[in-house]
């Protein structure tokens, strides 16, 4: 019986290199003659540039060049729009405004690039930046979402009539009629706020224009090397083939590195072509807070209509979404929010208007969760509030409203970020919820332990939060699989890696088809010279889209192996099996040929070949799903709050996920743990503080608190549930963002439950010990 690889807890192929410092990151690149870049960034969030004087900077010894927007001449152009608004939604308003490589006249957020210095070292470059004299004419700053839409607000883009960036309206059924039938209508207003991704590695670019070879090589911490290569070639008037973009190992990305044509990405390659020298720019931490994107600020006015026994008749949510100073990423985030407002529930009537607003703050693009946590937060809070109002147990109100397991595919009709109707393809929300409840011992805790703890004065709360996650969206990815003459397998894909375990997960998929040990499958990712078709690593689509592309390519190789081996071994294909690196006859194991030898036979050096011949045992294939697939899960938490210090201790944490076919449980658990840590940050520790002048007041890790091992629960107990996706061969779904999505809602529920003896309502996130104290004082 052939060994199984999919579903096994295989230790990661890539870890030995990563843990011993043998992996290549962008800052490891050292090229003779390389120069270093540093940027002059705006201190003001909104100002007109009256003049920039770079002469003192240019004169500093060791400085090779200083560029401003004026120096770029006709090469100056704003970045391209990345995502257009969905064509299938009627009445969409969208004003596209994008960031520039260097600001020409008006600065629109603090941290915008005004000039770049190229010098022998970063040290000299930064000294030169300090010598650049900018004369600013400060303009009034707009940073509050609601004030930004008032008639007398300063305009972020003065060629527009207001700060409205986009407006769209999505409807399902007829909410207004549903409301009339309701026994109870509950309204609330929620404020959600910004957090950063804070990857361990900041951004960085090395660009090397080789004037003799007429070849541009770029190393970039990007999640999307292929679009970067194509866009860069276009901007510089080069053939795509002249540009090679390599996304090497990247120390975490989480979404902001998917944002493309950051000012630095537009500028550094251009500078390299101007100077014919390799140029390196590595972002420092303070720059990262301003110059790398973040998200989550929204203001929601929500209404839920229910029957008195807790059935949801309809949901309405009109919300404002902060897009920052520019909106290159289109409507992806608000669409994700809208598509998660109904959660895993059967809500027959739904109405949601979203207004995206320009503000003088850094650009907003997806961060792990990408607008989904906001949607889940809203529906879960509304259900908790409804449960309290109707005196229904919070688990009961959820179970009665879940989409039942036999109702799939379930069409929510509204349009999602991939421009397709929101169809939930598969899932079993009730089973996942009950499993989480069982794992955390919900019944026993609520009936026995909690009353006992409360009687002894402890504030301990329990929470269960179910959620869905749209994953695995198209358009497509591709891969090439090849068996080499040494019997090892090469897998090449454009899909980059930022630590998710692709080198192992993809190997397992290949091993399953070809019977080769996982360690003998070598994976190459993120190099456009190796593979140049695909989009990028984002939206929890690796296991689905890239995984299935690799599966298809590996299956193609398997077919070729069987066909050739059948000839060589004079045996029908059905009687052959691929095990341990050989092809053998199933019942006669000593009649075999190694894959390596077979691969040699497939590439003859002499003789003639038949028409239609393809050399070697190699296959390239692509996969594009018809629509995204629905992952789901449920997290549970028991936490204790100290009602004086507001510090919390997580006693237990349970995460049940349904990501369809689990390829490697070890990797899935790693993704969950990482997601939970970001979710806890989003819930209680991380908030990007802006003042009314658009200044970030906590732009350092001393003040922006990310979760450490001390804040994490001692153990994240994971449970699996598999409802295979009918949309792809492997039956897989994404899980990259799942760990982060339900946590803010879970945390709010647990805190409310713990502080049962206080009358207060949590209608915001992120919270913090300070903020919780304020809320309790006010109650």
């Amino acid at each position, binding site marked *: 019986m052939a060994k199984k690889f999919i579903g096994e807890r295989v230790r990661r192929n890539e870890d030995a290199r990563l843990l011993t410092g043998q992996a290549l990151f962008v800052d490891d690149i050292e090229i003779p003659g390389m120069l270093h870049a540093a940027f002059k960034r705006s201190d*003001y969030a909104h100002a007109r540039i009256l003049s920039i004087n770079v002469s003192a900077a240019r004169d500093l010894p060791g400085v090779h060049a200083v560029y401003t927007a004026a120096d770029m001449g006709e090469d100056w152009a704003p970045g391209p729009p990345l995502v257009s608004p969905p064509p299938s939604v009627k009445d969409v308003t969208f004003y596209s405004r994008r960031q520039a490589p260097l600001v020409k006249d008006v600065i629109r957020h603090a941290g915008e690039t005004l000039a770049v210095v190229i010098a022998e070292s970063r040290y000299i470059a930064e000294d030169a930046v*300090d010598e650049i004299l900018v004369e600013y004419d400060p303009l009034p700053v707009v940073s509050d979402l609601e004030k930004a839409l008032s008639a007398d607000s300063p305009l972020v883009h003065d060629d527009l009539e207001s700060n409205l960036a986009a407006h769209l309206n999505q409807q399902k059924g007829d909410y207004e009629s549903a409301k009339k039938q309701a026994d109870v209508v509950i309204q609330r207003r929620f404020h959600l706020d910004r957090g950063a991704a804070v990857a361990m590695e900041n951004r960085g670019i090395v660009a090397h224009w080789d004037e003799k070879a007429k070849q541009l090589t770029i190393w970039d911490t990007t999640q999307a090397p292929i679009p970067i290569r194509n866009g860069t070639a276009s901007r510089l008037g080069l053939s795509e083939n002249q540009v090679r973009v390599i996304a090497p190992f990247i120390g975490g990305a989480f979404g902001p590195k998917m944002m493309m044509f950051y000012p630095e990405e537009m500028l550094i390659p251009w500078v390299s072509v101007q100077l014919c020298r390799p140029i390196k720019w590595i972002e420092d931490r*303070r720059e990262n807070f301003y110059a790398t994107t973040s998200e989550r600020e929204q203001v929601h006015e929500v209404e839920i209509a229910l029957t008195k026994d807790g059935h949801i008749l309809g949901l309405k949510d009109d919300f404002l979404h902060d897009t920052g100073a520019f909106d290159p990423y289109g409507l992806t985030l608000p669409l994700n929010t809208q598509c998660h407002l109904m959660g895993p529930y059967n809500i027959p009537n739904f109405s949601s208007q979203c207004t995206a607003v320009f503000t003088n703050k850094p650009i907003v693009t997806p961060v792990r969760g990408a607008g989904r946590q906001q949607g889940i937060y809203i529906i879960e809070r509304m259900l908790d509030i409804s449960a309290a109002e109707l005196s229904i147990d919070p688990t009961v109100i959820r179970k009665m409203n879940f989409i039942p397991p036999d109702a799939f595919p379930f069409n929510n009709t509204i349009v999602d970020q991939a421009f397709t109707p929101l169809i939930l393809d598969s899932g079993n929300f009730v089973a996942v919820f009950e499993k989480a409840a069982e794992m955390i011992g919900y019944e026993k805790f609520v009936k026995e332990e909690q009353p006992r703890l409360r009687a002894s004065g402890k504030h301990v709360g329990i929470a269960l939060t179910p959620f869905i996650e749209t994953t695995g969206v198209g358009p497509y990815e591709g891969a090439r699989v090849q068996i080499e003459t040494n019997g090892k397998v090469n897998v090449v894909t454009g899909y980059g890696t930022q630590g998710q375990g692709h080198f192992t997960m993809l190997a397992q998929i290949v091993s399953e088809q070809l019977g080769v040990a996982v360690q003998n499958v070598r994976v190459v990712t993120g190099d456009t010279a190796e593979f140049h078709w695909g989009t990028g690593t984002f939206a929890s689509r690796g296991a689905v889209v890239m995984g299935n592309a690799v599966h298809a390519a590996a299956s193609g190789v398997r077919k070729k192996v069987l066909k050739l081996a059948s000839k060589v071994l004079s045996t029908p294909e059905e009687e052959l099996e691929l095990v341990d690196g050989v092809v053998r006859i199933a019942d006669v194991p000593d009649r075999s040929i190694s894959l390596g030898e077979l691969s040699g036979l497939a590439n003859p050096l002499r003789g003639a070949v038949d028409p239609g011949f393809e050399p070697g045992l190699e296959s390239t294939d692509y996969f594009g799903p018809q629509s995204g697939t629905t992952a789901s899960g449920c997290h549970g938490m028991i936490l204790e709050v100290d009602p004086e210090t507001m510090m919390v201790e997580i006693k237990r944490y349970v995460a049940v996920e349904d990501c369809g076919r689990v390829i490697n449980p070890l990797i899935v658990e790693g993704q969950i743990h990482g997601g939970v840590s970001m979710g806890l940050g989003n819930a209680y520790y991380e908030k990007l503080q802006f003042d009314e002048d658009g200044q970030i007041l906590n732009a350092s890790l*001393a*003040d922006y608190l990310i979760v450490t091992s001390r804040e994490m629960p001692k153990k994240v107990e994971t449970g699996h549930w598999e409802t295979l996706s009918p949309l792809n061969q492997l039956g897989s779904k994404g899980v990259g963002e799942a760990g982060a999505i339900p946590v803010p809602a879970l945390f709010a529920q647990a805190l409310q439950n713990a502080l049962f003896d206080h009358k207060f309502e949590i209608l915001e996130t992120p919270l913090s010990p300070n903020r919780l104290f304020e809320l309790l004082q006010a109650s």
Partner: protein
Amino acid sequence: MNIQGEYSFHGSREEVWNIFRDPDVLIMALPGTKSLKKISENEYEGELQVHIGPIMGSFGGKLTISNEFYLESLTLTVEGNGKIGFVKGSGDVKFNPISENLTAIRYDGVIQIGGRVASVGQRLFDTVSKNMIHQGLDKLDKALQDRRKG
């Protein structure tokens, strides 16, 4: 952020008022002032060196005096720019005579900071600015007393 406080000078109201209008005294008063030059009746230009936590650097800028009600009150407006960021603020100062030798002032204002000094120094700004103002007022008082003796 808001900056408020009170301070008692050992001098008459007229003496205290004159100190406030004398750039040669003011330059001594605010810690870190490297230069202060009168450019018109109510405008001074200068450079101020600051040290807030890990941030050290100088601001070049303007100090303007306005809303003067002789011996009663005035408004100080400050606008500065430097490598470490920018600062702008405005405060009202009221003068209250207690006796020939004692005058109480009350100050009430708003300061905004931006750039590096805001991102990294914001947490400390409150304490640092209070210290700077107190040190400055102490020095002004000492200068006032020296002037009375001499």
